């Protein structure tokens, strides 16, 4: 394993890049003109705006988390940043959370307002201080929530980090990658700026692929079909880089005899609002999807394999959008379990003979509710399933969570701390690592290349599609 150490004092002082912000302003983008996407204004009193926004955004659970930390340091043992860099005290989750806690104490807490020096209370002095805060909350924490579950007090440090990200996003003090993806999602309704034409063409292409592969012309990928059993929503990455997952889903849904559709608008189940901390963006994207399901009179929403997409669509989105959940919203993993249990599809584990391990996505295991479910499937579609340790809610982050994959400036540090995950993967001896998160797919692939592990990343749909017993077809057909 690599011993390269990143100088985190340099990471903390990485400057704020605003080239794409300037371009967005020059291009007079709709989301900028309408005030949805905020730009950095060096002439504004950003410190005061930060303090005002902080006061507005603290809710009761956040206030309690800001007050309750006793600085016991137990969180250090749960954080992959702190574990990978034991000699660097700034990696301790409590230290990172203290960067926002000290501002809260200085302006809202009794003791901190009267004797700030006694409780480490301090206000940011300049935009440089806010930029340093940006580099800590965006670059040194993947909001994996491992420290939250390991805090004896129950302090939700990940929630504090997200709130801070949201305030900085409101001031335009964000990494360029976060700005760019937020811009795309505001402008196009999906985070990879996939055009409607590209989207529909890709679906058509995948439909033809499956029809040709199976020799069954009835296989369909319906779009905007009303009154279906479910509306299937995907990650734009599936359109751009990995459309096979859509083909796999279409194939399985066909054999299960499913009545399903994809929406023409509101199909992106991912949500960069989760990462940027921008609840307005979160609400906008989630509402698009919920409204699409309503318009199509779908009986449920099914979310393809995506960690933050599942968390955003199933859990956070309804709350961000102030939208009461009206129909069941489930992961495709649950849909697959239903098919297997009801005998709607048949699978043969012998078709996946290679050793497989499972990586729990943080957003699903620690902020969602699926830990046993993917395992239930894997044990039925793979002949050699191996747990990695620790697992389930104690699993380590792929190190690419919370949008870090879009922030190139933090990549060296991300890969350094990914050593913890790499060691976990290596110890399994598995050839395939399965995950139900597209973000984790990229995060794991990156670390697998970096640490030269001989592993391939797959998803549950890949393995189920491969293990599928196609009526009247030879197993060799299934590739």
């Amino acid at each position, binding site marked *: 394993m690599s011993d390269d150490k990143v100088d985190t004092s340099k990471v903390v002082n990485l400057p704020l890049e605003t080239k794409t912000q300037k371009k967005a302003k020059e291009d007079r983008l709709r989301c900028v003109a309408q005030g949805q996407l905020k730009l950095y204004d060096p002439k504004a009193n950003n410190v005061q705006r930060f303090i005002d926004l902080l006061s507005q955004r*603290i*809710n*009761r659970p956040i*206030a*309690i*988390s800001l*007050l*309750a930390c*006793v*600085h016991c*340091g*137990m*969180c*250090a*043992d*749960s954080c992959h940043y702190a574990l990978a860099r034991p*000699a660097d*005290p*700034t*990696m*301790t989750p409590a*230290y990172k959370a*203290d960067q926002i806690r000290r501002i809260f104490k200085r302006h809202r807490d*009794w*003791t901190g307002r009267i004797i700030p020096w*006694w*409780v*480490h209370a301090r206000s940011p002095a300049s935009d440089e201080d806010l930029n340093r805060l940006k580099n800590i909350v965006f670059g040194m924490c993947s909001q994996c929530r491992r420290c*939250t*579950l*390991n*805090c*004896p*007090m*129950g302090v*939700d440090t990940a929630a504090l980090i997200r709130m801070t990200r949201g305030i900085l996003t409101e001031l335009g003090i964000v990494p360029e990658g976060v700005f760019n993806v937020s811009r795309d999602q505001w402008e196009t309704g999906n985070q990879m700026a996939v055009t409607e034409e590209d989207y529909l063409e890709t679906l058509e292409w995948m439909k033809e692929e499956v029809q040709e592969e199976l020799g069954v012309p009835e296989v369909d990928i319906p779009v905007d079909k009303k009154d279906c059993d479910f509306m299937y929503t995907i990650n734009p990455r599936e359109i751009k880089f990995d459309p096979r997952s859509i083909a796999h889903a279409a194939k399985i849904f066909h054999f299960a005899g499913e009545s399903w559709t994809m929406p023409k608008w509101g199909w992106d189940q991912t949500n960069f609002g989760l990462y940027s901390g921008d609840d307005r963006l979160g609400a906008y994207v989630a509402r698009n999807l919920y409204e699409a399901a309503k318009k199509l009179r779908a009986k449920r929403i099914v979310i393809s394999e995506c960690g933050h997409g599942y968390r955003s669509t*199933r*859990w956070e989105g*309804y*709350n961000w959008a102030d*939208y009461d*959940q009206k129909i*069941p*919203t*489930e*992961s495709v993993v*649950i849909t697959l379990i*239903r098919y297997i*249990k009801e005998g709607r599809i048949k699978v043969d584990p012998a078709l996946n003979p290679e050793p497989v391990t499972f990586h729990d996505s943080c957003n699903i295991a*620690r*902020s*969602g*509710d699926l*830990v*046993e479910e993917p*395992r*239930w499937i894997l044990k039925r579609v793979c002949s050699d399933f191996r747990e990695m340790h*620790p697992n*389930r*809610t104690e699993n380590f982050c792929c190190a690419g969570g919370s949008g870090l994959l879009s922030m190139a400036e933090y990549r060296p540090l991300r890969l350094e701390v990914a050593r913890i995950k790499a060691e976990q993967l290596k110890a399994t001896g598995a050839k395939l690592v399965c995950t139900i998160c597209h973000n984790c797919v990229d995060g794991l692939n990156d670390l697998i290349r970096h640490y030269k592990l001989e592993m391939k990343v797959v998803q549950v749909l890949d393995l189920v599609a491969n293990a599928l017993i196609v009526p009247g077809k030879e197993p060799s057909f299934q590739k």
Partner: protein
Amino acid sequence: MSELLRILENEIQIAALSFLGIVYLFRIIWLFKFVYHKERTYPAGSARTGVIYSMMNVAMPWAMESVRKKPFFYVQFVIFHIGVSAAISSTFIIPYWPGLFKVKAVVILFQLSTGAALIVGLLRLFRRLSNPALRLISSLDDYASLILMILFFAAGIIAIPNRYETDEWPLIVFFAITAFLLIYVPFSKIGHYLYYPFTRYFLGKTMGHRGILPRKKSKTTTGADSNQ
């Protein structure tokens, strides 16, 4: 018993305790002024069970990896807080139920509890001073709170036999520290016990609603049957 000790044990302690109660009341009112958003999703688990599990977390050292990795730290936590309970109880037993400390075994039990907590307090202070990560996050309040507790335990050990006829000074010191503690606590990190039920409640409620806590065990049933 001197007038000074009598006042310290009674009027001053009651006044300090009342002050603590009033400040806590204001603190809770202040906390409840922060908005709390309504949950709009279908549950995947039980918020109530999550809250109970989360609250009981303190008594389940196996529940958190951080504690499993450091069982000695958990033992220290238990010893320290038993000592806190013993020392605080002593501040009520001495003035209001002095007969209890006439029983030698009870005195020894209380002295042992506070003595063990004193040792843990010193270990914790050493840890805070020697661990760079802890040093970095520690404020003066963190050190002062710990030192204050160490002094409280030390004074408690000497004061618990309650020999006011022969040796009054340990009692005066103990009750003076107690009064100061009661006034200082709501402004310091020692007041964390006020927040503990709230943090655990909110975390347990969210995690329980989402079916994350209590942690699932390997089982044959899956969420496929539930109303997702």
